[in-house]
């Protein structure tokens, strides 16, 4: 993937892990570029889809470029809130992942013989099996009622029960009930399909 770096200053900042006095102007004090890059790398590594693993560094690079652009466009010495910089990095990451996803979809459509890509080295059979289970879970989720489906989906995405309650405007008790009953029903549907993940 080619990335365009607009200004020499951005380019220099990206190449160097040290931060000049000038480049620190208007930057949240605790975060120099290297530290921010390391943090973004960790988050991207944790959440980057398996099929985009090979482009992980490009994604981090794109996020850093976007953050640096925001910083360099600031005309005052006002410190940017860390939360804002994280949102900038998030937006860039999502954009990159979506671009990669679109390219992947085009290539999959063009080459029907390559339906599943074994990017994790776990073997084509297990890749196919994993995709089949994932699809089956989605089919079974569709069979649940709205509340159970929403609760279980958030649970499968890694949210805790109290968090599910807060996001959906429910009490913790209701959230727990919906997750518990939803998981039990989901399991039942999967078993009827002969699957036990």
């Amino acid at each position, binding site marked *: 993937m080619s990335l365009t770096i607009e200004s020499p200053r951005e380019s220099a900042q990206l190449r160097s892990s040290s931060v000049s006095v000038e480049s620190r102007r208007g930057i949240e004090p605790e975060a120099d570029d290297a530290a921010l890059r390391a943090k973004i790398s960790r988050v991207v590594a*944790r959440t980057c*889809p398996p099929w985009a693993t090979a482009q992980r560094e490009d994604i981090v690079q794109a996020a850093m470029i976007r953050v640096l652009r925001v910083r360099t466009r600031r005309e005052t010495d006002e410190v940017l809130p860390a939360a804002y910089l994280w949102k900038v990095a998030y937006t860039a990451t999502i954009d990159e992942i979506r671009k990669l996803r679109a390219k992947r979809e085009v290539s999959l459509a063009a080459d029907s013989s390559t339906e599943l890509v074994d990017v994790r080295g776990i073997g084509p059979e297990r890749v196919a099996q994993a995709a089949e289970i994932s699809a089956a879970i*989605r089919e079974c989720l569709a069979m649940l009622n709205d509340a159970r489906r929403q609760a279980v989906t958030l649970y499968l*995405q*890694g949210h805790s029960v109290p968090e599910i309650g807060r996001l*959906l405007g429910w009490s913790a008790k209701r959230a727990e009930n919906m*997750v518990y009953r939803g998981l039990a029903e989901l399991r039942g549907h999967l078993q009827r399909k002969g699957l036990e*993940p």
Partner: protein
Amino acid sequence: MSSRINPDEGEALRRAFAQDPPPSAEDPVDPDTLWEAVRGEAQPPVVAALVDRMARDPALAEDWRVARAFAIEAGSGQEEQRPGQQRAEHGGVAEEPAIPPSKVVAGEPANRGDYRRWGRRWGVVVALLAAAVLLVLAWPRGGVAPYEDPGDHRMRGGGRGIEAIRGEGRLLRDEAVLEWSEVSGAIRYELYVSTAELSPLLEDRTLESTSTLLLAERLRELPAGTELLWRVEAVMPDDRRIVSETFAFTVQ
């Protein structure tokens, strides 16, 4: 309240759910909407619509995981990530095992992160009480200086938030007027209307007044009872934006 949810089988399902997805046929969700949802800033019906779509759309599930991870780093995610949760995200290896939900008692902190949060909450309560005392003491002697907004790029809610005046509940499709409270200093307003599934329906970025009549032609295609969502962004002279909450109405 002790949980009846078995953490091990939940974990297996989480791993399976996050497996390599097929291509998505649906348009991607606006990243801002996703960000607000994972941060708990969106209205529950908006979150519910997104989650419903996420249940069938693997690409959105991937995007949600990314948004959530960044929101947690931004410091105001819904919840600090428990160490073991990394396993749920594309098979990553956890540094520490998660505390099983069965060990969690509702309303009580379960780990160091929870204790820190509870500590912060108490800190906030104490600070608010102290502020209230100061406010009462200072009020009779000339009042209190108005709160100065720190000037974030986008602001939501609060005293300067945008309220819906018309455009909630049931609206007739031929006279669906959306009206909102004026934001002092705004140079224009941007209005976004979408379906409950978050597919964009109408958009106007050039509004100078605080109300608009929706195009009946666009609404006529929708069956009665269709729920639509809308929000307004007030654009300030310095490009800052004040974003309304998301409002909902049903087409009649």
